[in-house]
């Protein structure tokens, strides 16, 4: 399968890339890892006139800690997230999630920025970012803009990014002690999209009271979904079987999966409930071991 012809640009600086976006507007697409975009171009679902390859732009592939914030460059490959010691220390959820994203070769190319900017509710990082309360940094002609993750996803393949902006960094607050995180997706086989996926981050105080909870859901809604009622069901009390069951129930009610080859709507709701329970337990276990 061959893509429709396009003009290829490979700028060496961010400002050059942004100038190209200003010039070409929405006729242009950004090429990052390319493992969502190139397949869509080969199928001619995507037919950009201009392709702006940002892989040669330096300074976009870091994983670093600064002032209590973890900063991840948008061009950071999934394989680098999977093996980062800094991420393992603060956020075991990344190792959970990246191991389940596509396969090793795809993870050598795919980037966290692309995974988010694609705006696909079936991708795995969006739910993780919801659970971790991330902020997306977009850079455009006017400079940088911080977009809270809850305001980032608009609809099917639609995000808050403007045609002249590039997603350049993800910022995640590093939580205090007593925090644990976990992600799992049910998939039919390696490389498949999630039948359902659940990301959880919890913080417990010394007496075992849950003081913060983030829960994100993958591929069970038109957009990546924050399970807000589930979070509220946990906060302010100890984690008990009753509160976990309540959180699972709310998540299965509040999502809106569609029936497809991966399963019926009813099955997917049931799996959301199961995964919410399991990921809460895993996050609690990890919170205790830190």
């Amino acid at each position, binding site marked *: 399968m061959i893509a429709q012809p396009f*003009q290829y640009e*490979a700028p060496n600086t961010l400002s050059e890339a942004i100038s190209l976006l200003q010039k070409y507007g929405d006729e242009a697409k950004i090429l990052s890892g390319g*493992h969502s975009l*190139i397949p869509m171009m*080969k199928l001619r679902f995507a037919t950009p006139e201009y392709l702006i390859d940002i892989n040669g732009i330096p300074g976009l592939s870091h994983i670093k800690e600064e002032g209590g914030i973890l900063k991840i460059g948008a061009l950071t490959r999934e394989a680098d997230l999977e093996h980062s010691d800094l991420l393992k220390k603060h956020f075991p959820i990344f190792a959970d999630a990246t191991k389940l994203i596509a396969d*090793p*070769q*795809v993870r050598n190319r795919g980037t966290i920025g692309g995974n988010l900017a694609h705006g696909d509710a079936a991708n795995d990082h969006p739910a993780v970012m919801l659970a971790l309360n991330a902020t997306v940094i977009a850079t455009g002609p006017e400079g940088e803009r911080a977009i809270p993750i809850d305001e980032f996803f608009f609809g099917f393949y639609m995000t808050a990014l403007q045609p002249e902006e590039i997603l350049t960094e993800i910022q995640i607050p590093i939580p205090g002690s007593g925090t644990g995180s976990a992600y799992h997706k049910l998939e039919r086989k*390696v*490389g498949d999209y999630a039948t359902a996926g659940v990301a959880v981050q919890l913080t417990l105080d010394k007496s075992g009271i849950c003081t913060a909870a983030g829960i994100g859901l993958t591929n069970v809604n038109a957009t990546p979904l924050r399970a807000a009622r589930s979070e509220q069901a946990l906060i302010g009390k100890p984690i008990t079987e009753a509160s976990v069951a309540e959180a699972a129930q709310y998540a299965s009610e509040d999502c809106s999966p569609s029936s497809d080859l991966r399963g019926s709507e009813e099955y997917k709701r049931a799996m959301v409930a199961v995964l919410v329970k399991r990921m809460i337990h895993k996050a609690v276990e990890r919170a205790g071991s830190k």
Partner: protein
Amino acid sequence: MLKQITVTVNGAQHTAEVEPRLLLVHLIREVLNLTGTHIGCDTSSCGACTILLDGKSVKSCTMLAVQANGKSITTIEGMIQDGQLHPLQEGFKENHALHCGFCTPGMIMRASELLANNPNPTEEEIRWGISGNLCRCTGYNNIVKAIEYAGAKMRGEETASTEPQFV
């Protein structure tokens, strides 16, 4: 509009004028005539087109040739050294790890990065490591054995072939 690119493939430098939409696998197979790299699914699922790009295994059906400009590529043709099979090639031969052979170049290129990062992988690590490569005839047991064999050989240890011995 054609773009001029320069790539180093198996140690030799090549310059080509390509359309931006040309896939890397088509550059390798049809421009450079290195047909050891296969096209299976053409949708980045099967791994038959796996090559090394600057030492990292990638699926060449899901990259553009222009993206490889200035980079170094290794294909299955580059694995043999001084007429000697690479330990992975030898391992596949010794362990009956191929039947039709279509997936083999991709399996070997993927396994070469796996062993470079992890010289002594467990069986589970090997199975996860080749989870982006599909084989439709042998099953995976002998492929796993072949990679174990190559790992042992590359570590300088004794290797055991599973080739049946007829006396």
